[in-house]
């Protein structure tokens, strides 16, 4: 494509949503990725679209808006990515956990999230196989799920149908600017002139930012997911332990894990979630798989006889202040970043796209974008580890 209006680097779910948003706003968009669609973290994602796991603040506001936008996108592009308004159930079994969950859900309710408190009997009405040891939980009807690789692929297909293009197999090696204004990028195969570039490279966003002399301290936070053999319908919602929220918010590099269990349209059951900062260590850590299995069985004892079929790992793009980076580069105007969504990338992509597009096209934004600005890292002590 000659002379695109905007280039999006990264064909994961965030890049795809940015491209769609810009395309729908009338821009001619070129997506570039060094690999195929969903070859980064999106390809290892579970498909979470959650409002339940965020306390009040900018991220929750973004999540609520984004969740609704997913359903708009579904209608807009004609589906094809298993989007389901499945609902989430958060449970706790400790006195402190229950008390914290009550407080959190009350705050979330004040901020526009629908919450329904349930006791043991109420829980087992909607989740008959949930362990008898669980006596308190909260249902979040707003939580949803999709198939993330299909989502990225279907969105990019729509972008192409509407005049955009997708080039894969090109590595960006330079970001070119003139007097603080973006003029284009250079890949290992081509040179592109373009006034607007979006860095949607997730866990590798720091490397791309560096090409522009900018500092984005985004680091990999490894996670494993267990996939079972196709099983009878055992889990009806996404069900997770309230510890999950604390783990996401933790800055600890050591292993954090808590039970997250959900069924999929294809019949397999997905089990997470683990978080650790070990760089890009690729090996399969069996002890973590065992822990995830234990946690899942603790919530759903019948899972004991279900077979583990495969396991995969992904590297969540983690920013040290736990907020995604969405906004214009500190030094180069025309260069935008949309990355660092940690484990909420899928859920937050549509609103990310909307927010970026609104700023680029000088429209009003539905939320004050300041908390997400990459400028917050300028001259900061945060160092990419």
């Amino acid at each position, binding site marked *: 494509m000659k002379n695109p209006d905007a280039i999006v680097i990264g064909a994961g779910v965030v890049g795809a949503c940015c491209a769609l948003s810009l395309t729908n706003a009338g821009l001619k968009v070129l997506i570039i990725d060094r690999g195929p669609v969903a070859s980064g973290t999106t390809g290892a994602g579970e498909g979470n679209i959650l409002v339940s796991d965020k306390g009040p603040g900018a991220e929750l506001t973004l999540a609520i808006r984004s969740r609704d936008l997913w359903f708009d996108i579904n209608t807009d592009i004609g589906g094809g990515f298993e989007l389901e308004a499945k609902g989430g159930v958060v449970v706790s079994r400790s006195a402190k956990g229950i008390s914290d969950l009550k407080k959190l859900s009350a705050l979330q309710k004040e901020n526009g999230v629908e919450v329904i408190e349930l006791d043991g009997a109420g829980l087992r009405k909607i989740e008959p196989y949930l362990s008898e040891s669980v006596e308190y939980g909260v249902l979040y009807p707003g939580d949803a799920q999709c198939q993330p690789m299909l989502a990225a*692929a279907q969105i990019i297909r729509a972008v192409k149908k509407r005049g955009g293009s997708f080039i*894969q197999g090109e590595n960006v090696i330079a970001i070119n600017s003139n007097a603080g204004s973006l003029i284009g990028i250079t890949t290992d195969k081509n040179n592109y002139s373009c006034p607007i570039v979006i860095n949607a490279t997730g866990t590798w966003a720091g490397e791309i930012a560096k090409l522009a002399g900018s500092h984005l301290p985004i680091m990999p936070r490894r996670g494993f997911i267990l*996939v079972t053999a196709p099983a009878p319908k055992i889990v009806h919602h996404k069900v997770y332990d309230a510890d999950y929220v604390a783990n996401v918010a933790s800055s600890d590099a050591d292993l954090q894990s808590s039970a997250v269990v959900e069924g999929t349209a294809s019949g397999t059951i997905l089990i997470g979630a683990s978080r650790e900062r070990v760089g890009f260590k690729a090996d399969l850590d069996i002890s973590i798989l*065992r822990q995830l*299995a234990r946690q*899942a069985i603790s919530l759903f004892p019948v899972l004991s006889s279900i*077979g*583990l079929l495969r396991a995969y790992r992904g590297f969540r793009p983690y920013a040290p202040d736990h907020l995604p980076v969405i906004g214009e580069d500190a030094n180069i105007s025309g260069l935008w970043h949309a990355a660092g969504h940690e484990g909420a990338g899928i859920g937050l992509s549509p609103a990310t796209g909307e927010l970026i597009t609104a700023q680029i096209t000088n429209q009003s934004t539905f939320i004050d974008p300041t908390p997400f600005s990459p400028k917050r890292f300028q001259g900061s002590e945060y160092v990419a580890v």
Partner: protein
Amino acid sequence: MHNVVIVGGGPAGLSAALTAAVAGAPVLLLDSNPRLGGQYWRTPADNFGDQNENHFDLATGLKLINSVKAQSNIQVLSGAQIWSASHKDGVSTLRVIYQGSEKIINTGNLILATGAYDRSLPFPGWDIPGVMTPGGVQSLIKGHGVVAGKRVVVAGSGPFLLPVAAGLVKSGADVVELLEANKSWRWASSILVLLENLSKIKEGFYYIEAISKGKVRARFGQAVVGAYAGENGELESVDIAKIDRNFKIKKVRNIKCDVAAIGWGFTADTSLAGALGCKQVVAKDESVVVLIDSKQQTSITGVFAAGEITGIGGSELSMIEGEIAGKSAAKFVGCAVDISRSDLIIRAKKQRFAAALIKAYPIKSGWRSWLDEQTVLCRCEEVDLADLKDSIVELGATDSRTAKLLTRCGMGLCQGRICGRFVVDLVADQLNISPTDIDRIAAVSRPIITPIPLGVLAAGE
């Protein structure tokens, strides 16, 4: 306790076990089947009586199995399934499901002999009950005393079809067609190799005698290209085509049958080798095999491999490779034993024969023209050709891995054992490129080797 751990109780594993044990190294032999012998010497439970009738050289197998059982320094664990394995700092860790719970085995000295299974190619109707592999039909006869049906078509390519047809005839089935896709004159190019392996000629005549008694006529240059179900949804008839040398259809006829045993050679199961990190390469028949040196050692010191996983080559090659691997492994732990010149000569002879087989029975790309849009490719996840094409044309997949993520092809219970190999070809076809070695090797990557119940996983250390 034991110095050598061997995985696989077929010709290669048994030979390795006996050789290593006789050389003085105590052996632990793990096998996933209930009885030793692998696929090749599949035997039924004791109460089935004398099985010599159904097998050309079962006597060799029984002798080896009994020797292994009698050898005091060989411990056998049957019904042991390895679900995961890793190698670090000279130690291989095998995580085994045995009698319902997990057993961890750590060893510095390992021989992999995990064998192979029938290679399948898709065609319209291949998923109808009644369509099976030759190995499946043979296993039913040899291992369970059951003939899969009355009117049987045996088809595909390769010398394995002969003993399967013979076994069916001996068991009273009517083998209505025996079809070899390649032309009969292909053997002429390897006549010298054939002569050097006289036992093979004897074996061939044994089977030919058996099938001629059943009045079966072998036809060359023909293949099953379609299968049809009756009202009960089960196999009723097949389309048989005269094919050209590229396997493209020239003329089709339909015949009634209730079983079709169709196979196209073998695929090695290198899942365990791959999980440990042994280097794998693509062989001349495009199968993925484990790279070994002249001592049968893999790219990992102390990990040896023997049999079909080093290259499809039949039972006699498997046995000599097993013997050599057994000696190498025994020597590795300090036993005074050496590979002899005659070992090397025999192995070279058997390797030449194996290479000649591959040359005589190539699988040509024309099989892809037999498919229609609704032909199931991934049986486990019911992904058809239209779905696969869609993932490439519409959703932009440019390699097998992405096509897999978008369609679920290869993500089901068998983890791509049946479809993985030919999906690589179909994806490359669609993209007008040649499949890369990386694609082929990625298609056989299975860090979780077999499903493990979550409860067993949770209970392990």
